[in-house]
């Protein structure tokens, strides 16, 4: 029996923790709040240390809160992060997305900075500023930066944030044994999708959508052990998914992943979702890292990284690249399907479509098709936002107050 308008709009018959009001994906006010309350105080992956191999190597990163950053390795090998904003007239300091800059010079008026954020030259300083303003007054704005958890450079925009270790807690313990060897980036691309960032993180937080992937159905869902994989929730909104043995050779054109990963069981696959929008995805021979950069309520840029081991032989690296591309490259079998999925959600949920609810009601003892990963995320989202995801405008509360009156 199809639903009337009233039935469509009525709250789902689940506990309020088991559904989300669709407007959390479309509202501009909520989006602006998310940048301040979720992204600004969180540790975010900016790049990998292998992108900054030499002293003065730098990498630009647009922080999800909107701030343009420079991540640069100093002459002391320490990785630091700064606003890519000249303290003089607010211009962009570095333009190319990566490079090597012993001296970072703003092209506008040639003010220069070193890799520790010090201003080292103000052109015609004495003539213009006399003794009223000097280089010490013109340092770059540094943001907190720590390298860890597989050699990633994490940044945090707030001065009084908890340490990276406190933020992550035990969430990445499951991957620690497999991140002891130095890794190296071999793949990077961005995808622009008209969807909300949380919908991408949702996709990484539930495996019920394996139904969209022929590859996953044939190599995973139809294989022993698939329904034993379990979710574990951690403080701060993070969650992990346990492993199973993926039968890669069941897909025609694929093959058993011979190159593997040190210490990991054959065909293993672990995922860790880091709040508010990053995912570690170690699938047998390749580590994939997703970083979401929301551009608007219904606009998303995702950074995809693929990593192997720094010690790889050319043959091993070629195997990893093949494995990566088979499912995760821009022409891969799975990534296109996942991106189509969230693109479709973005189409159906954009403002004015009368999309109303997103259900997260599956309970299967925290196993692979349970939606506990998403529920855990939205519990943290609600806590940080001060808005329940099931009723972000507290309309239900108002109704209950009115009813009580």
């Amino acid at each position: 029996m199809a639903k009337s308008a009233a039935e469509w709009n009525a709250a789902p018959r689940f506990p309020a923790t088991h559904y989300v009001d669709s407007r959390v994906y479309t509202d501009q006010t909520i989006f602006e709040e998310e940048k301040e309350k979720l992204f600004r105080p969180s540790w975010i992956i900016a790049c990998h240390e292998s992108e900054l191999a030499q002293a003065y190597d730098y990498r630009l990163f647009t922080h999800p809160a909107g701030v343009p950053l420079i991540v640069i390795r100093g002459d002391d090998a320490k990785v630091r992060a700064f606003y890519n904003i000249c303290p003089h007239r607010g211009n962009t300091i570095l333009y190319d997305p990566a490079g090597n800059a012993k001296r970072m010079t703003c092209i506008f008026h040639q003010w220069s900075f070193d890799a520790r954020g010090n201003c080292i030259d103000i052109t015609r300083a004495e003539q213009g500023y006399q003794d009223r303003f000097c280089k010490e007054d013109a340092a770059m704005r540094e943001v907190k930066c720590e390298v860890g958890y597989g050699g990633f450079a994490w940044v945090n925009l707030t001065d009084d944030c908890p340490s990276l270790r406190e933020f992550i807690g035990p969430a990445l313990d499951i991957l620690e044994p497999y991140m002891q060897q130095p890794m190296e980036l071999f793949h990077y691309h961005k995808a622009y999708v008209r969807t909300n960032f949380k919908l991408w993180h949702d996709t990484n937080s539930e495996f019920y959508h394996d139904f969209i992937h022929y590859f996953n159905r044939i190599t995973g869902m139809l294989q022993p052990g698939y329904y034993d994989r379990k979710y574990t929730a951690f403080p701060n909104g993070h969650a992990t998914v346990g492993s199973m043995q993926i039968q890669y050779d069941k897909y025609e054109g694929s093959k058993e992943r011979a190159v593997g990963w040190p210490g990991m069981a054959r065909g293993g696959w672990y995922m860790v979702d880091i709040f508010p929008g990053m995912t570690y995805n170690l699938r047998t021979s390749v580590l994939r890292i997703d970083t979401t950069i929301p551009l608007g309520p219904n606009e998303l840029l995702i950074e995809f990284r693929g990593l192997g081991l720094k010690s790889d032989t050319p043959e091993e690296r070629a195997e990893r690249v093949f494995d990566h591309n088979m499912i995760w490259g821009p022409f891969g079998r799975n990534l296109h399907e996942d991106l189509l999925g969230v693109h479709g959600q973005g189409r159906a949920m954009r403002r004015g479509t009368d999309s109303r609810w997103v259900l997260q009601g599956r309970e299967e003892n925290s196993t692979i098709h349970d939606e506990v990963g998403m529920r855990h995320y939205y519990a943290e989202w609600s806590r940080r936002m001060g808005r329940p995801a099931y009723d972000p405008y507290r309309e239900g509360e108002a109704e209950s107050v009115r009813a009580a009156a």
Partner: protein
Amino acid sequence: MKTEQRQAIEELVYRSCLALDAGEYTTFLDLCDTDFRYTISTYSPEIRRDMVWLDHDRKGMETLFSNLPKHNSDHSPLTRHATVYTVDLAGQAANVVSALQVFRTQLDGGATELFAVGRFHDTVNLDGASPKLARRLVKLETRLLGYGYHIPF
């Protein structure tokens, strides 16, 4: 090089585009040699590395095509526009460089957008009755491909 030979090589490149545009994969593979290899690569200024995004031999391409119906894919058709720039003979083969633009047309409404630009770097075998593609390297300039695509360029 004889004009007829150059024309035959150019026509091979153009026919390969027409076949892929039409989803006629058997026709495309008929234009390829038995030891055909297809690669998509691009350079990333962000990580300052060349990247390979797809790499298959002829068997791999056959499998990629035959698996397509099992997957969920964007069905917006692509239109490949190639212009052969240079043809250099090398014994019984020719090295061919072509400009490539790929357009994508939305099924609903028919709006067409530029999807990607790059170049074909083809090696064409000339020792048979007709020229055949022995190697196609697609060097992409475009790296932002939205939600991607399942069918090679």
